[in-house]
């Protein structure tokens, strides 16, 4: 007899409502209105929507930073306020919420200490995370003097210091240069590949499309579309062919043949190179020539401790 194993969702949201009130507690804004979502373990899930649609509010409720007005939220099977849950999650906020007076090394060490990591483990992880963030050269400069992109790299690094099972990112690529965006996306993909769950919010649709397996599109606090990106975007009635460009007559003959077969005149263009990839290639060459970088390093090294499973699983 076949036994079905029921996998518990990493994040479960049932009929979530959040109403912000005024000073007298009169309801003013319905930020989230009856939202229902499930995020499965190992999934990269994106929350999309225009400003004020309730993305960040939802994420903050998942983190226990806001309390829901109604509905049920479970994160890794527990309430978001549970300290045991907080050991297993990492959070990258939308803005730079770091302590301006601390250096990146001190910041990472502090959050490691808060997570109860031993000194030698912290030292090793801080070194690897600084390397990942490309900020080894800037490790002893105060975070307050960093650019937004550099600060976001540190924010990402601090979120990973406890080797979390669930990572929540609020606008992860906002303020990052193309290299940072690419690195962020590569890290998200690598984290998902190692079995971690990632929930992110963004309004940069291309970035979401690059990394997310499933998305929910929110408007006025309600989910208007939920599903796998491939299912939502695929147009099954059309196809695209990419061929080596034939000569003038060959192309015309090919187009004529297609038109005869389908009854439609096909559109022809030269596919452009990916600007992001082109940019990264140029910068990589420049970095190789200079041998150093004044800001963040364009190279990426995923820390070895993140290559295995999360800390809780290893235990």
């Amino acid at each position, binding site marked *: 007899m076949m036994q079905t194993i029921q996998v518990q969702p990493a994040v479960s949201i049932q009929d979530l409502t959040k109403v912000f009130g005024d000073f007298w507690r009169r309801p003013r804004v319905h930020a989230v209105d009856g939202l229902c979502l499930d995020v499965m373990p190992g999934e990269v899930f994106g929350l999309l929507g225009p400003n004020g649609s*309730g993305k*960040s509010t939802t994420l903050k409720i998942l983190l*226990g930073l806001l309390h829901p007005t109604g509905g049920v939220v479970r994160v890794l099977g527990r309430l978001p306020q549970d*300290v045991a849950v*907080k050991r297993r999650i990492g959070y990258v906020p939308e803005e730079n919420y770091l*302590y301006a007076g601390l250096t990146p090394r001190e910041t990472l060490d502090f959050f490691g*200490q*808060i*997570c109860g990591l031993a000194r030698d483990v912290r030292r090793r992880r801080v070194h690897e995370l600084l390397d990942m963030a490309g900020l080894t050269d800037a490790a002893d400069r105060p975070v307050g003097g960093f650019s937004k992109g550099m600060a976001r790299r540190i924010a990402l690094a601090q979120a990973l210091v406890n080797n979390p099972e669930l990572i929540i990112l609020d606008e992860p690529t906002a303020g990052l240069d193309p290299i940072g965006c690419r690195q962020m996306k590569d890290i998200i993909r690598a984290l998902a590949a190692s079995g971690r769950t990632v929930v992110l919010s963004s309004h940069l649709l291309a970035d979401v499309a690059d990394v997310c397996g499933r998305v929910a599109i929110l408007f006025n606090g309600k989910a208007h579309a939920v599903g796998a990106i491939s299912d939502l975007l695929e147009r099954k009635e059309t196809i695209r062919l990419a061929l080596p460009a034939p000569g003038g007559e060959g192309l015309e003959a090919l187009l004529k043949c297609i038109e005869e077969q389908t009854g439609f005149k096909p559109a022809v263009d030269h596919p452009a190179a990916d600007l992001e990839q082109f940019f990264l290639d140029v910068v990589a060459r420049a970095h190789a020539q200079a041998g150093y970088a004044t800001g963040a390093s364009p190279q990426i090294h995923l820390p070895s401790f993140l290559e295995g499973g999360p800390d809780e699983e290893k235990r």
Partner: protein
Amino acid sequence: MKSSANSAVATLRRWRGLMGLALRLAVRSRQVACLVVLVVFACVVVPLFIGGDGTPDGLMRTILRYALTLTGWILGFAALVMGSLSISREREDRPLQLLAVRPVRAWELWLGKWLALMALNGVLLLLAAALMCASLGLRLWHMPATDRAQGLAALTCRQALKPLPFQAGDPALIRKMDEIRHAGLITRPVDAAVMEKDARFHLGEELLVVEPGATRQWTFALPDDMAPAADALMLHMKFSIPGRSQQTVSGLWTFQLPSGSDKLEMPMARRAAGVLLLPLAVPDIRKVKTLVIRFVNGDAAHSTTFILDQTQGVELRVRESGFVRNLLKGLLLQWSKLAVLAALGVTLGACFSSPVAVFAALGLVVAFSLAGFFTMESPIHDDGDLHDHSDPSPHWTVRVGRVLGKPVAWVVAPVQKIDVVEAVATGERIGTRDAVSGFFLLATGYPLVLGWIGGRVLRRREPATGVD
């Protein structure tokens, strides 16, 4: 077993991290540097300009009084403000959101901030003590050799002996009871004990006012183990003279021994208010069990009235232990008081936004300081109620003030129980039991209650607000 030990280690690591963060941020934001400068100013610069009352021991005491008072104000204000801003600023600047998503309990956040302030206050108090000792040493070093011994004598810790109360059957007490009976003030039958209590109160009040030419007398019981040193016993007098701020006044002290009487002229040429310490050379002091001290106001020609302090009017100070030991006990109590202020600040910071928290903290301290005024009453009205001189139907504001002031005064009483500055400056011995019990009550009891409130508020409040 092992997992609980690991959990305890992780908890300690978390506390150390939170405390280290608060300390590091205080250092980086130059708050600590500012405090160090202010402490140096209070303990080194101010003493350089202090002239004292012209006597070497008076100079030492004045330096101590100024340095301790200023240090207490600076550190108290800093503990209150830094405490108020620690959590409220982090909530407004948002780093609190990063902490709130970490495995940190709300009360641990409170504790981390408070421990950091405690550590900072401890270090700064020790620095202040070291600087005070250096300043005193410097002034002693520059004194002529003849004055140095007198200056050093001021740095001796002494136990304060209060005068014996009037015993039942004392002629003065009987005379006063007769006076009360014949004055016709008693309108109802009262028992003898109440009558005696009233008479004792009035006699005590009479002793505090020494009119021109008048004589007052106090009896002291000396301890059995008196050391036979030249400065073993000192007469301590705290007084003021209305309307004679800078004139020369004089008095005559006599102390009566089993072998006869000795006289002591009181040299009071510079200040007509303050504290006077006079050494009493009592021969064969081990054999003396009681000492009768008499004061004659010898300034009859100038119509000078001495008003003695209600609590420290006339005392004997018996040599006990070293100055440093007393100073350390005083610092322990001062540190405990700062712990209460820091706890109050951090709790208010957890409850309110930064400006509101600072104003609330300062306002509460002012209200607590003024609580004594609302509850000030003649002690006889509480207990004996023989004849009430006060308004029988006070204004409703006074009644409300009394009702509100009583619980506040009850809360504040342990904090104000020992005047550390006065004790250290006048060399009054601070009892070890008083210091330890004061420390446990102030540095653990009060912060525990305030921490519980702060932790609950932090847990109930949402660390993040706003819509996006």
